[in-house]
């Protein structure tokens, strides 16, 4: 039982770690590397998978911890150096696992009962947890091999921890417990996955977002009020500056008059929700061509926000030159709501929502 649960937890934690790294390196690409802008759905899939594998890990981790809990009180507590090392390696594994699930669940609900900054701390504790998991796998692989898979009887001599015949009892059998864990994982998935799976928005019961709830039928993460741009974004003297070898500016009226391209793209949030929308605006590539920005150059998109970690974002050539990447001024045919980035925002395929900069007023060649 413990071996099977361990395998499943290894899969969900491994998935969460890999998809978490994808999201991290999309936001902080290592030097010289840039992500492709296609397929459009890739980030939505990866981040939805990240949050879902974390949520599904809740019943798996509970089941695993409760299955092995009696071993916490085994006697004698330590039988030699190897045994002590193995037991100590469990501490960061369990502490890290509980920490990652608890902070992740809090963060997607935007509940912050802790003082540390979520993304950075969740990232580093992920490395600690996965490292401890690797040590644990190395320590336990013999037991798993002796208890799971075809031909396990031939490997039974490798360990003294062999699953014993089920004791007669009236409570939940092992098979019943396995079914309960699977059912719990299923219920958690079915009641939350609609927040990122296209077309399933109506099935969301226990997820923090519903894809069609928000201004203009689209969720918002950071409001204009929170960003401190309510007054400046409404200024009629707004202009969009495009800075390259041939810099130019567009007035508000010119920008809206030139907004002729319509695309359908999702907002894909790092918190695991995604919502499709129809955007109208000016192709970023067209603006860059007009300013004489060479095709291999990255550009920085700047918001009217005064401060904040997401005030600007860098758009690398694959995204900057993608014909679907817009400086958008309309959403669903109507002028962009203030909370969605009026007067103009970036919208690009396969890009984390926090990098879809809102209230854009400058595009600068890097």
């Amino acid at each position, binding site marked *: 039982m413990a071996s099977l649960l361990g395998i499943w937890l290894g899969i969900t934690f491994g998935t969460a770690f890999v998809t978490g790294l994808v999201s991290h390196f999309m936001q902080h690409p290592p030097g010289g590397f840039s992500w492709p802008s296609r397929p459009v759905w890739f980030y939505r899939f990866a981040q939805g998978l990240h949050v879902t594998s974390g949520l599904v890990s809740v019943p798996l981790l509970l089941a695993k911890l409760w299955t092995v809990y009696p071993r916490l009180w085994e006697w004698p507590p330590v039988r030699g150096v190897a045994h002590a090392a193995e037991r100590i390696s469990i501490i960061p594994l369990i502490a*890290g696992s509980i920490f990652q699930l608890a902070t992740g669940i809090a963060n997607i609900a935007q509940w912050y009962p802790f003082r540390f900054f979520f993304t950075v701390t969740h990232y580093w504790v992920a490395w600690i947890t996965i490292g401890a998991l690797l040590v644990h796998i190395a320590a336990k692989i013999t037991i798993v091999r002796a208890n799971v898979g075809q031909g396990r009887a031939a490997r039974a001599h490798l360990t003294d921890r062999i699953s014993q015949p*089920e004791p007669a009892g009236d409570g*939940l059998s092992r098979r019943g417990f396995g079914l309960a864990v699977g059912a*719990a994982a299923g219920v958690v998935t079915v009641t939350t996955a609609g927040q990122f799976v296209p077309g399933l928005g109506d099935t*969301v019961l226990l997820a923090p977002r519903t894809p069609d*709830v928000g201004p203009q039928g689209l969720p918002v993460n950071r409001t204009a009020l929170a960003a401190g741009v309510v007054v400046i974004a409404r200024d009629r003297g707004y202009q969009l500056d495009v800075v390259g070898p041939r810099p130019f500016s567009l007035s508000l009226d010119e920008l809206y008059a030139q907004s002729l391209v319509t695309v359908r793209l999702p907002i894909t949030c790092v918190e695991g929700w995604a919502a499709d929308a129809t955007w109208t605006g000016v192709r970023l590539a067209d603006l860059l061509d007009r300013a004489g920005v060479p095709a291999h150059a990255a550009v920085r998109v700047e918001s009217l926000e005064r401060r904040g970690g997401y005030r600007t974002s860098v758009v690398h050539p694959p995204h900057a030159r993608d014909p679907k990447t817009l400086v958008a001024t309309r959403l669903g045919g109507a002028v962009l709501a203030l909370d969605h980035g009026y007067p103009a925002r970036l919208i690009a395929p396969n890009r984390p929502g926090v990098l879809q900069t809102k209230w854009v007023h400058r595009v600068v060649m890097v």
Partner: protein
Amino acid sequence: MTGSRPTDRPQGADTSDPPDLVDRHDPARPRAVARVVTAVRAVVAAAGLAVAGYGIAGLVTHPRATHPAHTLRWLLGGLLGHDVIVAPAAAVLGVLLSRIVAHPYRAVIQAASFVSASVALASFPLWSGRVGHPANPSVDPLPYGRNLLVVLGAIWSVAAAVMLRRAVRARRSTDRPGRSPR
């Protein structure tokens, strides 16, 4: 959830595996395999220590974001909270349940309780009234308390249906003595 049947065999106690499985192989092979496995285990353990060390280094070299002492308190708090409070409480509840609920229904109640606890835990911030963003109604927009009750209602309806089926079977089997009421 059909409960266990006499044919259910726990992992590893599967006596249907052919007993000659080891003998069919070259006797030298298991030893070679064992050596490879040991080497791989050592490499994986070393890699794990390096990865965890990288994480610890990252945590302590970004103190303005991670507040290492505060993070450590949360790490240990989660561990102790589970081992000292949650797990013993779950065990006590389990024992109480087994005293109150009789045999063919006990497993169903245990399973439904586990599913309920998992679902409630995974959505805890939402239904416990700890969130609420008046300035941004698109965050946590649903009536989560009601929704949790709907989901729990569905879980316990399934559990009730299974128990009903077991009750019917138990009655039938008392008509035919000698059969287990499962």
